[in-house]
């Protein structure tokens, strides 16, 4: 078997996934040995036209990170899908929408107003200028990608073969995926390259019957290192989050943030977290329940931190009815 052809792409994400690929350290040489990189805009100089010129399904594997929220991202996602035999949603944003997915709690107009009018760094914009998809200049037509009303996870735009979750995916998981791809020992299509159960299954902390009377934010207490964080009042997303990360945050005495997405079978990670937390809360008066709700600052951002675009509701309603 000759050398494989790989493409790596970066859509709506922070770039951490790109760094994560380099985080495999010296094993990057194994990757280089196994594959020729044909597209990696972050690290190497390729042109989209080079990809367009390739035959369909001529790329063996595409590692696609980032969510889809602009016309350019969608266009390249579709292009890479056509050219690739195997499409991997790489990292939380591609898998479930990730942090950019929280933009679905607002609207395109609100975002543009914030950035081009309201932001403190905007000065002298008496006549606000918004980015235009097309601008005529003497040299011709300048084109900018269009920002979409909503953020989508990759599989809502193109068919995806495998999911490699994490914010970012851990080097171990990346190497597991690389080895599987390199040796052709791939799991069945649609598989998530991580565990099947939730983080609690591998969490080393002692878990007991759960009842909490108040909720803390991570900066408010130093939790006991051996005891379940949820039992200590911290919103740990572990019970509704797929394992596979090696419980890194837990071992650093921090609650799980949920970046690996829901475990197999769960349709809506945030809803599951909400019902789990509500179920163990020991409030029996309307007042105590109201007090607990006050203690959860930014519930949508807490329970749907990585899963807004992947949720049943997906987004805030747009249009007059939603405002």
């Amino acid at each position, binding site marked *: 078997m000759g050398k494989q052809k790989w493409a790596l792409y970066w859509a709506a994400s922070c770039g951490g996934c790109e760094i994560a690929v380099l985080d495999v350290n010296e094993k990057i040489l194994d990757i280089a040995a196994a594959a020729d990189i044909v597209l990696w805009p972050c690290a190497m100089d390729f042109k989209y036209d080079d990809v367009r010129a390739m035959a369909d399904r001529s790329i063996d594997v595409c590692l696609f990170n980032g969510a889809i929220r602009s016309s350019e991202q969608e266009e390249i996602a579709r292009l890479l899908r056509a050219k690739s035999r195997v499409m991997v949603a790489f990292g939380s944003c591609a898998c479930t929408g990730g942090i950019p997915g929280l933009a679905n709690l607002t609207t395109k107009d609100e975002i543009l107003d914030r950035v081009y009018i309201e932001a403190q760094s905007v000065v002298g914009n008496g006549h606000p200028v918004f980015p235009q998809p097309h601008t005529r200049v003497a040299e011709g037509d300048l084109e900018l990608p269009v920002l979409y009303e909503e953020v989508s996870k990759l599989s809502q735009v193109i068919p995806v073969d495998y999911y490699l979750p994490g914010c970012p995916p851990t080097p171990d998981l990346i190497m597991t995926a690389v080895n599987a791809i390199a040796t052709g020992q791939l799991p069945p299509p649609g598989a998530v390259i991580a565990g*099947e*159960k*939730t*983080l*609690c*299954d591998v969490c080393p902390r002692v*878990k*007991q*019957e*759960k*009842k909490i009377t108040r909720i803390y934010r991570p900066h408010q207490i130093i939790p006991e290192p051996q005891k*379940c964080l*949820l039992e200590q009042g911290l919103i740990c997303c*572990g*019970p*509704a989050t797929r*394992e596979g990360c090696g419980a890194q945050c837990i071992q650093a005495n921090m609650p799980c943030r949920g970046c690996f997405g829901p*475990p*197999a*079978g*769960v*349709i809506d990670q945030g809803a*599951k*977290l909400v*019902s*789990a937390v*509500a*179920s*163990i809360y020991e409030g*029996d008066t309307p007042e105590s329940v109201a007090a607990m709700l006050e203690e959860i600052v930014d519930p949508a951002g807490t329970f749907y931190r990585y899963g807004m675009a992947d949720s049943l509701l997906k987004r805030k309603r747009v249009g007059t009815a939603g405002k």
Partner: protein
Amino acid sequence: MEDNNGKGKTRERIGVYVCHCGSNIAGVVDCPAVAEYARSLPDVVLARDYKYMCSDPGQTLIKDDIKEHGLTRVVVASCSPRMHEPTFRRACEQAGLNAYLFEMANIREHCSWVTDDKAKATEKAKALVSAAVRRVVWQQPLQTREVPVTPAAMVIGGGVAGIQAALEIADAGFKVYMVERDPSIGGHMAQLDKTFPTLDCSACILTPKMVSVSQHPNIELLAYSEVVDVQGYVGNFKVKVKKKARYVDEEKCRGCGICEEKCPGRVPSEFEEGLGKRKAIYRPFPQAVPNIPVLDRDNCLYFQRGRCRVCERFCDSNAIDYEQEDRFVDLDVGAIVLATGYDLFDASADMRYGYRRLDNVISALEFERMCNASGPTAGRILMANGKEPKSVAIIHCVGSRDTNYHQYCSRVCCMYSMKFAHLVKDRVGHDTKVFEFYTDLRAFGKGYEEFYNRVQEEGVTFVRGRPAEVTDVPETIDEVGKLIVQAENTLVSRQVRIPVDMVVLSGGLEPRSDTAEVARMFNISRSQDGFFLERHPKLDPVASMTDGVFVAGCCQGPKDIPDTVAQAAAAAVRAVGLMNKGKIQVEAATSMVQAELCSGCRVCNKLCPYSAITFDEEKKVSVINDAVCKGCGVVAAACPSDAIVSRHFTDAQILAEIEGVLV
């Protein structure tokens, strides 16, 4: 049958039946149009509309279609599943189709009864049918199971309701545990002097029943005890009862009363509504059952100051035990009757009438104790100065029929107020002036109207009007030293000021102050007025929403003694019926843990109201005991990893249903 509907499901053959319910549904919903629409839905092989689906011909229609057309699923669009789900499930089973392959769409309560808009009601009925059709495809056959019923009942509350229920159940041959919070059973009825309209002596008719309770071989009385925890389910409840420390050994005490006689402590008596005193070691009243005193620790010299022990010294049977502690007993029962009674509305909440502020403004129960021969005044109606009143005003509807307090009518106040009027005339003298201030007179029971006529003939003055206030500030020389009742006589549209010596406030009946906690403990609902909610206001007024828990007496709503006794007997029959059967069918739609998905996070462990869930420490997974699970779905909803499946309410079923509504 073999092709696929795109959801990984085999094709089903669904029959849809749209019920007219006479004109109940068909008057608003276009039933033929709904049936027509149903025919267009996936997997539906036939759809019919029919006048009464629950009738025999209606059920036969379903049965014949299952056989002739090979239906594999059935949907009936009619009333609430609470009404006829069992009917249609049975029909399906009789035709050989598993009962859980049936689904019901409620197009009566949810459509025709909530709007007059025919177009919208029809549209909604179509959506509900669409939801049911899409859901039923995902339903799976389930098997119901039977479990044995514990042949013992618990009656909570030892008032007349509880007493009646306990005696009925015990007479039917079943063991009864009667739990009473106070030192003696008897409840409010024991405090009353006479009962309307017959004027029987309340104690004379009640105390024989109290004694029967204490002597009945099938009744175990746990007085001065409270239920602290209830687990389990119909037929198999596990109740934890706290027996509060009496500091008197029940086995040794012979009830001679010497301790009570010698005790130096004197505190206001709860039973006498604070009008009389009792000792620190006491029986609330002479005929108390059990006839065993209780030592009131907070008012006992020995407990408070460390010396005295007089009761111990005089007790011949060495029954005094200062070391006694609260004890907890666990009881297994098959049925529970709640008969926890009521609280009298606290008239001091209504400032206008001066209760606890003005002398000689007294509550209904205070008046009862005053009239009672064994009460604090030995049956004499007396003012604070020890003299008899020459005129008495009785104010109805205090706290009742008043949007500031309780909207409902307390049903007994009119009658007991007229009984009071009679008692004033009887005890103080026929020349005593008595004024009844009423809103409307409600004398609806057997012999009640006759009693009203009798009291009128006795010369009682009836003033139709709710008094604005009771004051001791005189405006004329006649009013000096009197209580003046200011009211509008609405029959003549004129303000009246009536000076009297005494005012009796006929307070309404309200839910016990701890009704919310009790409801939570027994997992039953309350109606808007705060009383326990019966399962159906007309057809099932003695059952609660929780199987095996029945309600009797004023805890379910204000009622008089005859109604209370009738309801208590009815509740007893229901409990006996349950125990007589010996076995009950339990829900097949239980929940299960898929061990391969459970991560052992233990979120679910404390949630099950029936204690059906345990944690397997070895395998680190949670486990549901199928025999105990009632399928309430709490843990399935809470399980953050979807490891728990609630049978008959799976994600696939619910999502298909939602999708069906939205299509």
